[in-house]
């Protein structure tokens, strides 16, 4: 008790430590929750191991009204291509279609009809418009598993050489395209 002022500050510091800890945890949770609201953080998101890897070996047969494609076609690319898994039975895919239609003049898009009857997929594209220059059918969903998709719609940006540069397990919207996809395309063009 020789120097009470120093002792007091020590005690105060010790008292403040749990409060500071709680504050840090609180800020962390707040960031997580606000990220969930903005869509920048999704706890259900599956960390896509395919990112920055070459596309898996696959080939999808023709799906009317387009021509099927394979891993070789994607690996031979010199321009970025957006690969979109969709299905006529999937409501978010239907909601996503206007966004894809708006993007089709700026970016080449290839579609894969996932676990869908060919006539249903063709009818779906007739109804919603067809943004895809090539179109394949993955009737049993095996190609989807090789790409690591867990549902539809899922979208992959394939860079030159067939490298997967970006992946979205949620329907594309204008915000995602402006905030993420466009800057990424710019950087791909530069490199």
């Amino acid at each position: 008790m020789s120097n009470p002022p120093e002792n007091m500050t020590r005690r105060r510091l010790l008292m403040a430590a749990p409060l500071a800890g709680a504050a840090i945890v609180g800020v962390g949770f707040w960031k997580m929750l606000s990220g969930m609201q903005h869509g920048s953080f999704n706890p259900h998101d599956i960390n896509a191991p395919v990112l920055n890897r070459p596309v898996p070996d696959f080939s999808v047969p023709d799906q009317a009204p387009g021509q099927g494609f394979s891993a070789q076609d994607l690996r031979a690319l010199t321009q970025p291509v957006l690969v979109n898994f969709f299905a006529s039975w999937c409501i978010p895919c239907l909601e996503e279609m206007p966004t894809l239609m708006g993007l089709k003049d700026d970016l080449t898009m290839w579609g894969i009809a996932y676990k869908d009857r060919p006539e249903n997929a063709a009818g779906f594209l007739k109804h919603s418009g067809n943004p895809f220059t090539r179109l394949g059918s993955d009737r049993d969903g095996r190609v989807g598993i090789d790409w690591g998709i867990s549902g539809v719609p899922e979208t992959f940006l394939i860079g030159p050489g067939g490298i997967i540069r970006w992946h979205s397990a949620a329907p594309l919207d204008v915000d995602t395209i402006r905030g993420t996809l466009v800057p990424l395309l710019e950087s791909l063009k530069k490199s």
Partner: protein
Amino acid sequence: MMLRRLSALFLGCALLLAPVLVLAVDDPSEMLPNPQEEARAETIGSQLRCLVCQNESIEDSSAGLARDLRRVVREHVAKGESNRQIMDWMVNRYGNFIRLSPPLSIGTLLLWSMPVLALLLGLTTAFFAYRRRNAAPAAPPPLTAEEKARLADLTKD
């Protein structure tokens, strides 16, 4: 009376456990003809997360993707691949998230050892605090001549 109560308890427990024991392989045609291979496929499948209903294994889930993954597992088992090979095949496509028991990594090691680390930190802090409190208080500094004179003055009576 006692026996009846015991059997009621047993039945209750059995009923509670029943949904756990029933796997979602709802179509017998999905099962492999060889019971040993089927058992192995079920063991592997129960370690794989269904990515649609994320807290269920693919053996428990009746989601379409889970059914597809069950079929893939059975095909690989029938081909004679090892459990490790099949697990790697899945992790290669879906990442470690598909494993219901995560592998040992720096992150998981830190997570699992955190209770022990926190306990050690607490015990160390408590030990030092206790030692400090019980240490003999430092001897007061010797009195100055002035203080000695005052003390003598005060204790004169």
